[in-house]
């Protein structure tokens, strides 16, 4: 068709419907024979896989509170299992009657995170908000004050445990990683050697081994009188591990900053700290937002490894729910449910990082 138009070029017409759904489909789905084939093949795969999946997930699924026997006769998923066990999955062994507390604690944590997403609030006082938020979380979870029943950390579990490990992990590991990255680029040999050694050592071992060491080996070296809380030990291991990974990401960002930026800052009389804080780091970190968020997402899911040091995180709580003999057949439902929870958080992080990249670059485009 374009050949015909090319031979008779008297009239300049706009190309046939580039706008609208048909124009879009032609340009994106059917532009070439190969593309057309891919489009049709994708539709076929969806048509083959989607209906049975939807049948299992929704249409044939068993909802509400029913006995496991009812589920066994159904073809679809047994969401009754989740209705029965969601409190165990979400809050682990936290005292049943007190579970309104982790609900509030998680809400407070999520509210604080959403609040912090707004760039207008990126001021010094946000640090105070975080301290307050973490204090509220801790007070609700621990209790022991305001007439709240004390709950030891070994009873914490499920979503609040996973969230606090991840959130504190991010908040502490990120600044630490910046220091490590700067240290690795430092001209001072001792600082540089320490940073290199730390990063290579921690990055070179699996998180599981770090968790094991923190949980089982550390107490062997410490005197009996000093007992460090198991949750704290796992938290420290996660922070150390994440910081080492992030440090290399941040270093990549630092390397992308041209020498001229440092020189311009120096020529204006900015000190090292001011130069880094005001000129170099904002650009360096912006350049590596995707891999930073990538690390955060990986770390969020890696918190499930704390199960091996007997912390009942979201995944281990799910496993415990499945271990009920009456409901053992419905382990898939349990894993789908918990996967969905992980997905929501990870998807939020991913979307937020895209938004952040866009909004931070908005002014810089020509």
């Amino acid at each position, binding site marked *: 068709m374009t050949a015909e138009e090319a031979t008779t070029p008297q009239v300049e017409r706009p190309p046939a419907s580039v706008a609208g759904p048909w124009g879009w489909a032609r340009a994106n789905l059917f532009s070439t024979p190969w593309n057309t084939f891919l489009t049709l093949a994708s539709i076929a795969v969806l048509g083959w896989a989607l209906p049975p999946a939807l049948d299992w997930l929704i249409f044939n699924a068993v909802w509400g509170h029913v006995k496991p026997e009812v589920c066994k006769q159904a073809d679809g998923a047994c969401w009754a299992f989740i209705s029965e066990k969601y409190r165990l999955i979400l809050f682990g062994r936290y005292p049943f009657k007190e579970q309104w507390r982790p609900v509030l604690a998680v809400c407070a944590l999520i509210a604080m995170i959403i609040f912090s997403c707004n760039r207008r609030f990126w001021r010094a006082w946000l640090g105070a908000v975080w301290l307050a938020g973490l204090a509220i979380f801790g007070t609700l979870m621990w209790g022991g004050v305001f007439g709240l029943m004390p709950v030891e950390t070994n009873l914490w579990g499920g979503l609040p445990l996973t969230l606090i490990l991840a959130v504190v992990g991010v908040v502490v590991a990120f600044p630490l990683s910046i220091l490590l990255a700067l240290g690795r680029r430092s001209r001072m040999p001792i600082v540089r050697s320490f940073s290199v050694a730390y990063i290579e050592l921690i990055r070179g071992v699996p998180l599981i081994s770090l968790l094991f060491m923190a949980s089982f080996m550390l107490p062997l070296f410490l005197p009996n009188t000093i007992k460090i809380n198991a949750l704290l030990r796992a938290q420290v291991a996660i922070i150390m591990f994440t910081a080492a990974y992030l440090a290399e990401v941040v270093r990549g960002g630092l390397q992308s900053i041209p020498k001229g*930026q440092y020189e*311009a800052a120096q020529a204006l*009389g900015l000190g090292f700290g001011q130069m880094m804080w005001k000129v170099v780091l904002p650009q360096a970190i912006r350049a590596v937002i995707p891999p930073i968020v990538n690390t955060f997402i990986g770390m969020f899911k890696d918190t499930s490894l704390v199960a091996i040091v007997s912390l009942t995180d979201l995944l281990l709580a799910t496993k415990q729910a499945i271990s009920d003999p009456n409901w053992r057949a419905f382990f898939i439902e349990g894993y789908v449910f918990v996967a969905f929870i992980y997905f929501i958080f990870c998807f939020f992080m991913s979307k937020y990082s895209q938004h952040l990249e866009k909004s931070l670059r908005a002014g810089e*485009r*020509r």
Partner: protein
Amino acid sequence: MATAVQQAAAQGPVIEMTGVHKWYGQFHVLRDINLSVALGERIVICGPSGSGKSTMIRCINRLEEHQKGRIVVQGIELTNDLKQIDATRREVGMVFQQFNLFPHLTVMENLTLAPIWVRKMPKKDAEAVAMKYLQRVRIPEQADKYPGQLSGGQQQRVAIARALCMNPKVMLFDEPTSALDPEMIKEVLDVMIELAKDGMTMLCVTHEMGFARTVANRVIFMDKGEIVEQNAPEEFFNHPKSERTKLFLSQILHN
């Protein structure tokens, strides 16, 4: 002006380089540089590429470290003392070939960053000063844009305004027009000429010989890390003494 001259007489030269040497590894980039700059002097430095002109002016605010000899700026000798280096850098403005504006900050933020953080100026005052200099470089309407939204000539004028906001005693220009498209060179040179007329002490590495003739008190020719010849522009261009200067001038003026 009278007080400034008196001060200059009392303080001696603004910049004094004596027997300065510098090496990059084995490569001897600066050989026995002796240079004295008086307050209000406008010096143009030229020479073939690799002759050490940029390195020399970058030593003045210690973006490069010299390895032998003395550099005294405003009575303060440049040593490894970080406080003295920072003190010197506050008084010496610099404009780079590649502008080196901060791309993540608006024009206004570029201009107020150092006054606010280094001079501890209140934000309002810093913005007023910045606006004054933006008007002087004739782009006040671009204050809220980002550097990436400006043309090269505009960016370089912002860079000049940024340096001026620190109220420096000396301005160093490192090939300020070399990265610009030809049609933008004039707008930057006009700003520099105006600055010279206002009595700013300037050291300018450039190949713009028209600019040298218009504003310089002194033209310095460097080659192979040495100052080969220096003279008033009229003498320098009409009666060059050294063969190397003659060769260089014939190359840049006749093609």
